[in-house]
């Protein structure tokens, strides 16, 4: 269930992401531009937009009824779609090997995070069941 609290969190994170995205974009673009021209500003704003979506959609992990898999998938897909659209239209990347390698690494990061989370939760649940058995063995009366 998407509560009011989740919506507020999404807005705040989106704003933080927008600012962070602009800073990161500034760091990449600063050396490549002569002053604050229109292209520089556009790059800044597009970087901010990527940050906005990436950070804003991270609330997917806070939605109680969504499992890790769904949350990871939603976050991944929303980030990839926005990033690719902006990156290709802004000429940050071209449809070449560099982009392919970047996407593979990007996807791999999400897979690794999902696998780590899955293994941690599996281990935690195993511990819970062990504790539960002990609890029931000790319960009397």
């Amino acid at each position, binding site marked *: 269930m998407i509560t009011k609290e989740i919506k507020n969190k999404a807005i705040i994170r989106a704003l933080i992401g927008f600012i962070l995205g602009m800073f990161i974009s500034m760091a990449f673009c600063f050396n490549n531009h002569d002053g604050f021209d229109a292209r520089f500003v556009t790059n800044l704003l597009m970087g901010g937009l990527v940050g906005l979506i990436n950070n804003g959609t991270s609330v997917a992990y806070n939605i109680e009824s969504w499992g890790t898999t769904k949350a990871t998938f939603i976050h991944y897909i929303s980030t990839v779609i926005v990033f690719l659209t902006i990156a290709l239209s802004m000429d940050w990347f071209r449809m070449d090997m560099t982009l392919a390698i970047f996407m593979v690494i990007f996807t791999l990061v999400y897979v690794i995070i999902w696998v780590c989370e*899955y293994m941690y*939760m*599996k281990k935690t649940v195993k*511990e819970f069941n062990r504790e539960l058995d002990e609890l029931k063995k000790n*319960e009397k009366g």
Partner: protein
Amino acid sequence: MREKLRQMKDMVDIEVVLDEQYIDPKVTILTKENTAQVENIIAAIENVSRSDYPMIATDTDNRVEFISQRDIVRVYVDGRRVVLQTEDASFSIKKPLIAVECDLNTDRFLRISQSEIINLYKVKCFDFNTAGTIGVEFDCGVKTWASRSRVRQIKELFRKNKERGHG
């Protein structure tokens, strides 16, 4: 380890024995015959027990019924209703979930999501699937899920019960 704590002699002989196997106190009354005095003692003990862990009042079809906390499997929100579920039946509660949570024994009950509180002693097992949700199955066969954000609280309740069990 059993340890006889004290022995009192008055009208009634009271013996308190510390035994770490008994997490919840067990009262055994030894008597020659079941008299009014014995009934009064039982009533007094039950009153004290209820005041520590009050029975939960339910209101289903305009009929008020009091449910012992030991019988509760879970309490959850279903639409606009708060539902109390035992192994045999479901009952409606007129209070909000947060108010019910205040009445429940915190050594047994645990909130596993925004809309559900469970009795840990009624849980058969937990599981975790590839969808990434923590499943909870109860002894009576009912299944639900726990929020990943409540993992810490579940661990804490197990730790608390472990400490109680070892005195």
